[in-house]
């Protein structure tokens, strides 16, 4: 008799506030199998996994673990049942040692006191069993990202996990670290552990996984052996029908002749390993790449948040030195940051205060801020960007995500920058605002700004951009004209390096 299926989830449904996130989803993983789980943003991958881990409760459906029905309602119960999770946002305590983390909250004791010696020995054994060379006495805060992740895996396995969920485990790993991780996964598989591998990287999925399940819009789309599907089919399956029609695109702006507005030459910075490109006035350049490719890091370097360690920047052909965001603003570069709630807005301040924060110098008379000027400037920006705000003096916190995003954009345009770097400008905003933002970006390009857009949302990226730069492992590896990118599938294949 064959071993029972490790995980069998049938007819899983889940809704949040009446919005269906999972609709009758089936998902099965065999023991000693590496099963890839794929799907676009909002496809329901993480919700499905959180149900398996006991973080969320399913509205309907069954979960069986090795043939036994499972009804874990807490992380601890799911863990006891054998579900281990390697968290994307790591769950380790940086001030404790490797051994202390592995045994956190389940420390071996002798006479009621923690037995550090046993803990260290058992950690060393565990690490040896999975073939990982890390000193159990090392403080986690001192480890590299890869070691951190391997510790995380050891921690999950310590509780005899029979099912291991890994969410984008290679996102922040270097090439040789990925190899080590894959060897480890192969060993775990040989020990009969079922691995659920969530990833967007097709090359890795093909290397490590046996089967793949694709979710789309909260539904199960397909499950197949990887030797039976092509990467193109998978990419098309993930992207689905939301392809961007060529006609949706905004009209291309006239690109100015003469020297480029911004020249980036072999720029190196933390996470960026040599980026070279240029942006001309009136051009929208999109930067596409997988998570961890260094896109956000590049944006931060261009705005002077992180120090550029090599290469150089030129504006209008003249070299500029960016030691701080203030330098970048002075040079005419503005950044719409990735996390607007954290980096873009002062949520408790009013809409007016937020809009005028970068231009306070212009709001003064005899050294004091003048309410009239603040009101005039902010009203002008609210009107220009169609920000739906009933009371401009109310805190920005009260606005919708889309309107908050428009405030961040409007706020920076108040400084009249020449180059605008936008990091995930359409993340987490509603569809209406998305098209509004696309329109604003095209409009800005027409007025002669140079725009760099980083986005994981391909439909918007395709609708906005004149040119795409493909980023991989901290480098710009390719530049593709908009003409050859008609659909999301084209762009995804370019990002994956699979373009024909």
């Amino acid at each position, binding site marked *: 008799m064959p071993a029972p299926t490790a995980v069998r989830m049938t007819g899983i449904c889940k809704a949040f506030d009446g919005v269906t996130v999972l609709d009758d989803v089936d998902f099965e993983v065999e023991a000693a199998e590496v099963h890839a789980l794929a799907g676009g943003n909002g496809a329901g991958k993480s919700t499905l996994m959180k149900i398996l881990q006991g973080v969320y409760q399913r509205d309907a459906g069954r979960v069986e673990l090795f043939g036994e029905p499972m009804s874990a309602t807490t*992380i*601890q119960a799911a*863990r006891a049942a054998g579900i281990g999770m390697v*968290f994307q*946002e*790591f*769950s*380790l*305590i*940086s*001030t*404790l040692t490797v051994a*202390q983390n592995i045994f*956190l*909250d*389940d*420390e071996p*004791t002798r006479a*009621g*006191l*923690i037995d*550090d010696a046993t803990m260290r020995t058992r950690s060393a054994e565990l690490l040896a069993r999975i073939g990982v060379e890390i000193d159990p006495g090392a403080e986690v805060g001192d480890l590299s990202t890869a070691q951190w992740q391997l510790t995380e895996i050891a921690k999950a396995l310590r509780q005899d996990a029979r099912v291991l969920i890994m969410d984008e485990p290679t996102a922040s790993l270097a090439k040789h670290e990925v190899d080590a991780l894959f060897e480890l996964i192969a060993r775990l598989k040989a020990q009969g552990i079922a691995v659920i591998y969530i990833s967007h990287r097709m090359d890795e999925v093909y290397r490590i996984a046996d089967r793949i399940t694709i979710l789309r819009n909260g539904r199960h789309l397909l499950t197949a052996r990887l030797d039976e599907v092509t990467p193109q089919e998978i990419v098309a399956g993930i992207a689905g029908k939301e392809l961007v029609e060529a006609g949706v695109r905004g009209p291309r702006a006239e690109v100015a002749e003469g020297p480029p507005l911004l020249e980036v030459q072999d720029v190196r910075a933390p996470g960026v390993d040599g980026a070279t490109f240029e942006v001309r006035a009136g051009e929208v350049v999109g930067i596409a790449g997988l998570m961890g490719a260094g896109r956000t890091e590049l944006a931060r370097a261009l705005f002077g948040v992180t120090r550029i360690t090599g290469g150089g920047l030129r504006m209008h052909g003249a070299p500029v030195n960016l030691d701080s965001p203030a330098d970048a603003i002075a040079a005419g570069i503005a950044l719409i940051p990735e996390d607007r709630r954290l980096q873009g807005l002062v949520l408790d301040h009013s809409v007016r205060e937020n809009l005028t924060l970068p231009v306070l110098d212009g709001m003064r008379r005899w050294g004091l801020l003048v309410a009239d000027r603040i009101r005039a400037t902010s009203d002008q920006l609210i009107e220009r960007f169609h920000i739906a705000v009933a009371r401009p003096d109310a805190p920005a916190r009260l606005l919708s995500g889309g309107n908050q995003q428009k405030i961040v954009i409007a706020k920076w345009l108040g400084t009249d920058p020449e180059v605008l770097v936008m990091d995930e400008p359409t993340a987490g905003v509603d569809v209406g605002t998305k098209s509004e933002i696309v329109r604003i970006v095209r409009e800005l390009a027409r007025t002669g700004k140079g725009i760099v857009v980083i986005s994981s949302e391909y439909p918007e990226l395709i609708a906005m951009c004149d040119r795409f730069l493909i980023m991989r492992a901290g480098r710009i590896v390719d530049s593709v004209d908009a003409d050859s990118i008609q659909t999301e599938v084209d762009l995804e294949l370019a990002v994956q390096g699979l373009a024909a």
Partner: protein
Amino acid sequence: MSAGAPTTVAAAPGGAVHGLLSRLDWRRDIIYVGFVVVFLVFAVLLGDQGFLSTTNLLNILRQSAIVTIMAVGMTFVIGCAEIDLSVGSIAGLTSITTAMAIASFGLVPGVVAGLAVGALVGAVNGALVAFVRIPSFLVTLAMLGIAAGVAQWVTDSAPQPILNSTFNTVFGSGSIGPIPGLVLWSGFAVALGAVVLRKAKFGRQVLATGANRTAAEYSGINTRAIKFKVMMLSAMAASVAGMLYAGRLHSGRFQWGAGDELNAIAAVILGGTALAGGRGSVVGTLFGALLMGLINNGLILAGLDSSQQQVIRGVIIVLAVALARNK
């Protein structure tokens, strides 16, 4: 720190000293270095004023004892990324409660009443911080005023004498051989606190919660219960401290312990516990408290008045914490 730094200092004579220094973890060990340095400086400068006499050294230990006990509790609170500003007032309230209960009901009810004050205030602090989720800074700032106010109100600002000599002997006035009882109490508190923080599951949970609450939660730790317990622990330690004030001074008074919260916090931070939580050492806290006692004692022997002492103590605290931040 580059090799070509234009310093006027000649090359260090021995590599051995460098080797030793490089093995030191500044953030963790600065307190011990600081303690030794200050001790040696005073020993050289104030040796003939009796600094090194047994009586004086025991005096330093005794004078640091009560703050040390509060600071042991505070180490858990700060290690858990919270703060407790109410410990001084809890000590004062405990001292009058114990004194009044002893006068009316006798020794044992007096001690029970004193501990009950700590348990009650700790439960209120803990519940507001852990379950109502009000920042501990605000909760305990409010409690600082409430506890001190209640103590002053019910006693009408009058000291409450304690005539029970057993209580006075056990709580602070007695001694075993040459060793003052207060020093034994604080030694016991430090030993217990050090073992619990380093070797018990609870200590590990406290530091994990302080370092990264989400990760601790994902590791199965009930972080609310932990926050509740540290606030409770700190209040209990403060109530023991309050009874020691009462026993040593043969009376309860609302002012006993006033201002001690800042000394306790300073001792904890000097001792290498991170103000942001996640890292802490009870032995470090002991030395933090001793260092402050040492400085006070030395400055008095040197003939400085209390205003000058405050200035110098402030400078030393800032210096120690600044040094600990490097590297």
